[in-house]
Structure formats: C-alpha cells, structure tokens
C-alpha cells in the first residue's frame, strides 16, 4: 500500500458513458489506477462496474457513447497484450469448438511470438498455475467438457497468457469454490508482486474484495460513491450505502433463512 508510485498507470477524468438513450451508465468518474496496485470495484448489479472495466480496456460496444478522458501514464497500451481481460461470462468468451489449450496458446503465440510448441507448453504451465487438475489432458478438452469453475480458470489463464501490465478481472471468481478462489487470489497476488502487474478487480463480493485489494472503489448508479484503502472502506465506511453493503454480507454466521419468519439475510 505504501510504495505505490506517484504517476498513475491510468487516470480517468470525468468519464461518462451512456448506452443509447438510457440513463448514464457512468457519470463523471474521476479515478486513478496506480501502477502495481490491486484496486477492487464493488457495487450492485447495474451500477456500472463492467462498463468502467470495458472503458478502461477500450472495449465498449459501438452503441455506447462516452465523454471524458482516459490518460495512460506510459505508452498507450495494446489491447490483448498489455491488458488482460477476464470477462464476466466465462462460457461466452470461449470458442465452443476449439480445444481450450489451443485458445490459451493462441494468445501466447500472437502476443509473445512463441512457436506453437512453446505456446502449448506455456498453456499447460498456465493451466497448472490457475489450479486446473491434470493440465496435460485438460489442454485438449473442449469447453463443454469442463465444469463451470474449470472454464473460468481457463479464461483467467488466457488473460494472463501474454503477461499483461494490467489485469482486469470482471467477476472472475464468482463461479469458483472458496478453495480455488483462495488459490486464485494467491495467484493474482503473486502475479502483482512478481511481475509488477496492476489489478482491477470487479466483484460484488465485498469480503473477497476486502481480502484481495489494496484499495476499494464503490460504485452506485454510475457514480463513484467512495474510494479509499480497504481498511478505511470496510472498517469505517463513510457512505451509508457502503455501510449497508458491509452489513448485508452473508457470512458463515448469518442466521438461517428457512427458519426465519421475516426476511432476514439482508439484515444479518
């Protein structure tokens, strides 16, 4: 938390995005992502988390109109190589008729200039690092032969295959069990520490964000409500909405729902 350099990796100024004629998906966001930090973006469904992540990666759909600026500290990044993106829907971002190992190798080949053999070896290595069992045979599997969590780990492997500077993970661990989730969190920590990768972590799981991130940004209705160190945001949330998020978290000591006569889990 302390040694973060002063020049931000990317600075968003007055970033505003609208889809069609609907209300603004993002309105006037000012946010710095510091090089080498782990920044979590939390907020309820539809608050604009994915929109912000897509905007940073330059992947907004053509139907989106945006205003404001996105300024990069160094050279402007090359999508795919400098930015790794784990999409919210793992099934949708994998090609159903291509072996998953090839899909990851393809990324390594195009961006790192590896030969096919080296790229496949790297895919196998990455499969091991994201905790996929039996990487040697799984590289030949097709997406429908994998469980939900296994598919999600493949997309994480693909996102880090080209050693990006910035890793954007949009709900990357929502389909994973807590054990693998903890492993992925440890892997992401290691990548950030060893390779100097910067992380933008999008999640609706406030506890997970708290475990992983140095700083947390809270979005609601397209506005940035609160931004601060994890300790500050979780321990002493300033905004009433953030406070309610902390309270609504379902944990291992929340009272059971089936026995309750009133609506409980939100007020545990």
């Amino acid at each position: 938390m302390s040694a973060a350099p002063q020049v931000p990796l990317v600075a968003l100024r007055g970033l505003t995005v609208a889809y069609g004629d609907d209300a603004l998906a993002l309105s006037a966001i000012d946010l710095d992502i510091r090089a080498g930090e782990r920044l979590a973006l939390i907020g309820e469904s539809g608050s604009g988390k994915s929109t912000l992540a897509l905007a940073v990666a330059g992947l907004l759909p053509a139907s989106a109109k945006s205003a404001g600026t996105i300024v990069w500290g160094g050279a402007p990044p090359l999508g795919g190589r400098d930015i790794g993106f784990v999409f919210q829907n793992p099934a949708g971002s994998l090609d159903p008729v291509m072996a998953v190992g090839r899909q990851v190798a393809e990324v390594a080949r195009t961006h790192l200039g590896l030969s096919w053999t080296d790229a496949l070896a790297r895919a196998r290595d990455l499969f091991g690092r994201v905790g996929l069992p039996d990487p040697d045979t799984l590289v030949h599997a097709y997406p429908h032969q994998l469980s939900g969590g296994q598919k999600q780990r493949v997309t994480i492997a693909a996102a880090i295959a080209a050693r990006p500077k910035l890793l954007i993970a949009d709900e990357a661990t929502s389909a994973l069990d807590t054990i693998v989730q903890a492993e992925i969190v440890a892997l992401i920590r290691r990548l950030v520490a060893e390779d100097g990768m910067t992380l933008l972590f999008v999640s609706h799981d406030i506890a997970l964000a708290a475990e992983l991130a140095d700083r947390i940004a809270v979005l609601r209705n397209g506005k940035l409500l609160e931004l601060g160190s994890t300790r500050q945001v979780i321990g002493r949330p300033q905004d009433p909405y953030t406070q309610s998020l902390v309270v609504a978290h379902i944990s291992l000591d929340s009272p059971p729902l089936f026995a309750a006569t009133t609506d409980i889990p939100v007020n545990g």
Partner: protein
Amino acid sequence: MRGRFLQTPEAMAGTAILVLLATMALAAPLIFPGDPLRIAGPALVPPFQDWTLPLGTDRLGRDVLAELFHGARTSLVVGLAAAAASLAVGAVIGTLAGFAGGLADEALMRLTDAFQTVPGFLLALAFVSIVGPSLSVVVMAIALSAWTGPARIARAEVLSIRERDFVAGARVVGMHPLEIAFREVLPNALPPVLALSSIIVAQAILIEAALSFLGLGDPNRVTWGGMVAEGRTVLRTAPFLSIVPGIALVVTVLGVYLAGEGAVESAAVKKGLS
C-alpha cells in the same frame, strides 16, 4: 446498420449492380412487352446503328437488348431459387445431422461427402440430361450440387449450439427433440449459413449459364448462356453477340459477390462490437 453496410465502396458498387439488375428483370415485360424471341428487325444489325434496336440484332433478327433484359430475369430467378432451395435443404440436413449425432450424423455426413466429391457442374449436367430441360429442373439440378456447403456449416454451428445451456433448458421443460432442433437450434445456426448465399447465387447463375450454353437450358426462355452460345456461330463477323451477354454475366456475378462480402463484413463488425 444500413449506413455502415453501405460504407465500403465495394459494397456500394455491388449493391448498385444488384439494384440495376433487379430493375432490369422487373422492367423487362414493361419496356419490351411480348416475346423477346420474336423477330424485331433485319438480322445481324450491329449495336449503336439503329436507335430502336440500340444493341442491334442477332442472327435471326431478335432484339439483343430485349433479350438481355429478359435474360436478367432468368438469371435472377434461377440464382435466387437455387440458392433458397440449397440453403433450405442444407440447413435442414445439417441441423438433423448435428443435433441427432451418432449414426444419423455419420450417415448424413457420408451422403454429403458423396455429393461433394462429384463436381457440381457434372452433377447438374447429368440431372438435366436425364430429366429434361426446364426452369424448375435446372433449379433443382443446381440445388443438388450446392446444398453440401450449407449443410456442413449448419452442422458445425449446431454442434456448438447444442452444448449450450438453453438447449438443456428446452429438454428440461419437456420440449420434443424435433421442436428443439428446428425452433431453438436452427434459427441460431442460420447467420453463418446465410453468409454463404452470395457465393451460391453467383455459382448458380454461372452453372445455369453453362447449362444453357450447352443447350440444356429451358428452351422457352431467353438466357445469357444461350445468347453466348447463339453468338458463337457468328463470332468472327458479329463478336458483340457473345460479348454483350458475357459482360452481363461477369458484372452480375461480381455484383452479387461484392454485395455479399459487404453484408458479411458489416455483420461481423456488428457482432464483434456487441
């Protein structure tokens, strides 16, 4: 979307050609009423000599321009009908093969292989010479050789779609397998199959022309292929009789191809960005 489609000059040129062709085909009976095969003047009038016969006349004194307009009708009808028939047959067979899997898939795909190994033109030629030339037989003959491409693409697409959750969802709700195949899966497999249509239309127009050139076209209709063949006998003295319909053929095929490419490209752009 339309704006984006027409942005590339190629797509614009292709569309312009197709619009012109369609206008020619639709306007033919209005501008040149009556039988285009009747005698309209002296034989072998060269083009640009007589303003009532702008492109001159052929060996039998028929109006070349009228023939060209009516020929556009034949080419267009055959091209579109053959493409529609082969896309429909191919999509149905490909969907059944991909969705049923196992033995049915194996059998249908061997059948497709068998059809694909015979050159399409020979197949059409054999079919027409056995059944006899008429417009619908020509259409069928062309479809017979062109359905394999759509069938393969539909099958590949169906293979990936049938693993999707919504197909499982349809089974869970108790839907009949045939309804799943044709109501849930097929419509989602269609876009890449339809992308083939421009190639098939162009191919069909060329095959029809070749059949007519060999005298196997519908004898009661003017066709560009037939016109080329007709002009061949007087190629030395009146080359325009073969050149004019030849150019019409080339331009039409080019137009279909360019417009098709444009459509596929704009669809790809749309898909990539959403």
